[in-house]
């Protein structure tokens, strides 16, 4: 398990991480979302022990990760920069990492390499962006670490390559309970592979939720005989994310199970009551809004 408590980090006097609290369960696929500059890469670099935090703690299976070789051996980090190691061949890259990771499997490496047809003896500099990404992912998976951190891993991959990389991840998740942390600025890109997602903004985790579970955020369109305010619904025990009133129709976004919501709304004797569950994207937008952020600035919908 990854546990981050009150993590703070400033670089050159600028606060990049501003009190991060986060738990990532073993075997889960965690999506770390946020716009460019939100602090995703900085957070990942703390997770793999490259950066030393100013304060707070970063624990991997209960041990502080910075300057801890044993903890670091459990983690492989796939950087979002594709320019490193351009003078290496894939075979040299493999040998380079093999030294650090005792669980490295030649057998798995060969199997993965053959599945994507990457040449062993050509310099990585001659590879396309997608091939470089595949090369490092193959090496990373072959290291058989318990944790794999992917920084913008799907960025620039075409759909076919994305599918291949995804399938490789799935095999490792099933074979050895690999925990994956994957950052992205695009929710749609990673929504189907994550079970949990967290949104970063301005060096903070703005919110975090399970995304493959039962549908749990609903948009209600209701009308009543009487006038009500947002507080009336909050006091009734409803988790109101957004509240709008247009003439006599209320549009209320509520977090919760629909039967419970219905029961509570019925106590207000609605004359019109309609509900739909939200898409993941809408949930994120409303969650951001409820926290006082303008989600459009944060979610990149390209």
């Amino acid at each position, binding site marked *: 398990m990854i546990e981050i408590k009150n993590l703070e980090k400033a670089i050159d006097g600028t606060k990049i991480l501003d009190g991060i609290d986060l738990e990532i369960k073993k075997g889960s696929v965690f999506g770390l979302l946020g716009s460019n500059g939100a602090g995703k890469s900085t957070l990942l670099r703390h997770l793999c022990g490259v950066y030393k935090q100013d304060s707070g703690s970063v624990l991997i299976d209960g041990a502080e990760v910075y300057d801890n070789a044993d903890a670091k051996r459990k983690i492989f980090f796939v950087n979002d920069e594709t320019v490193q190691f351009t003078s290496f061949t894939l075979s040299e890259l493999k040998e380079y990492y093999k030294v650090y990771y005792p669980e490295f499997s030649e057998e798995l490496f060969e199997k993965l390499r053959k599945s994507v047809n990457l040449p062993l003896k050509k310099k990585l500099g001659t590879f396309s962006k997608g091939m470089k990404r595949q090369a490092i992912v193959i090496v990373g998976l072959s290291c058989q670490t318990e944790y794999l951190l992917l920084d913008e891993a799907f960025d620039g991959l075409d759909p076919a390559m994305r599918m291949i990389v995804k*399938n490789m991840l799935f095999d490792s998740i099933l074979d050895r309970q690999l925990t994956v942390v994957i950052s992205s600025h695009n929710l749609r890109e990673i929504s*189907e*592979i994550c079970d949990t997602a967290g949104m970063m903004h301005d060096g903070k985790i703005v919110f975090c939720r399970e995304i*493959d579970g039962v*549908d749990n955020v609903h948009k209600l369109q209701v009308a009543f005989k009487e006038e009500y305010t947002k507080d009336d619904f909050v006091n009734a025990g409803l988790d109101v994310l957004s509240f709008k009133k247009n003439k006599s129709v209320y549009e209320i976004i509520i977090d919760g199970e629909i039967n419970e919501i219905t029961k509570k709304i019925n106590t207000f004797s609605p004359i019109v009551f309609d509900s739909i569950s*939200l*898409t993941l994207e809408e949930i994120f937008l409303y969650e951001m809004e409820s926290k006082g952020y303008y989600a459009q600035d944060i979610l990149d919908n390209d």
Partner: protein
Amino acid sequence: MISIDLQSRVPIYEQLYKKITELIIKGVLAENDQIPSVRALAKELGVNPNTVAKAYQELERNNIIYSLSGRGSFVSKINDGTIRNYILSDFDDSVNGALKAGITREELKRRIDEVKEND
């Protein structure tokens, strides 16, 4: 055979649950038929295997499928509860659709009675 809609509002896990139940009720999958492994289905659909596993666990908990360790998951003997739940949830969806389209509850209730009479 098992397909899902990634753009849908319905969570993937719930879609899988419904889809597999539907295939069983409609007779596409028969008792003791093997269903795809979690791995195969996750790869085919491109969704997190943990999500697929969760749907399978729920199906197993409700005796819709059973699993044999090391051999995979299979379709259980279909039980009345499964069919009942499926038909009723289908009915609920239709009712919701009708209510949204402005048909009143009274009209729908009358309709049920009429259906009965015409039987």
